[in-house]
């Protein structure tokens, strides 16, 4: 019997061991998707300016942190409260954490984490006999 396994069915970038900061910070909602070359993480962090943002990539972890400026006046009607953001992810060893790039645009953080060359898909030439 042959067992087929798709590479990348486990998610190296997130899942286990996520850590959340104590109260008064918000874990931003994220999308994580995978391409042949990299993992892409998108996080909604409205109110954060580029100088209030920290993206720290270590060998086995990625931490995103954003500070917001709260308005001076309390709103008369309130559905949201601006809070600082914090979320951490575990990275697997097959990612190149030293080549992570981050861009913040319109309150959305985009982090690209390249895959190590040894796990990138490799096309195998098929010989005909």
């Amino acid at each position, binding site marked *: 019997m042959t067992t087929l396994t798709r590479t990348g069915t486990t*998610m190296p*970038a*997130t*899942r286990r061991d*996520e850590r*959340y900061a*104590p*109260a*008064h910070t*918000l*874990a*931003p*909602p*994220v*999308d*994580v*998707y*995978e*391409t042949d070359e990299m*993992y*892409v993480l*998108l996080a*909604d*962090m*409205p*109110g*954060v*300016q580029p100088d209030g943002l920290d993206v720290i990539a270590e060998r086995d972890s990625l931490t995103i942190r954003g500070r917001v400026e709260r*308005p001076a*006046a309390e*709103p*008369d*009607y*309130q*559905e*949201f*409260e601006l809070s600082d953001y914090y*979320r951490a992810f575990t990275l697997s060893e097959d990612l190149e954490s030293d080549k992570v790039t981050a861009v913040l*645009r*319109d*309150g*959305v953080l985009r982090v690209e984490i390249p895959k190590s060359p040894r796990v990138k898909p490799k096309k195998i030439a098929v010989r005909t006999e």
Partner: protein
Amino acid sequence: MNGRATLQPWQEIRRMQREVERLFSGLAPAWRWPLTGEYPPINLTRDENGLTLSALCPGANRETLDVTVLENAVTVRCERKPEENVPEAAYHRRERPVGTFARSLNLGERFDPERTEAVYQNGILRVQLGRGSEPAPKKIAIQS
């Protein structure tokens, strides 16, 4: 009737809701704004010049951001598009809302569309609504 007074009960409910969400914030990944069932979430601040509306809509498509003021009501529309050319199967996690969203609020008083300004910065839409000049009171003669 004072428009502010009519909005107060909701504010108290929201405040309690945020407190409950905060209590549980250590247990689960948070995206609590859509729990209200309304997107984008909106804050209103009044001052002597008028009213400021703030809506959280990070990553909105600028061409489709739209603010309409009609008499007592303001309508905010925004669209959040998913990433292009990413198949569903490539996603490991999808927590960010996508789609077209619209909110209409009755502000309890009239604002002048000519004195309305909107700015979109850092994912927050801020709309400044200025009060219009009040029409002069008109005396009505009583016919006998």
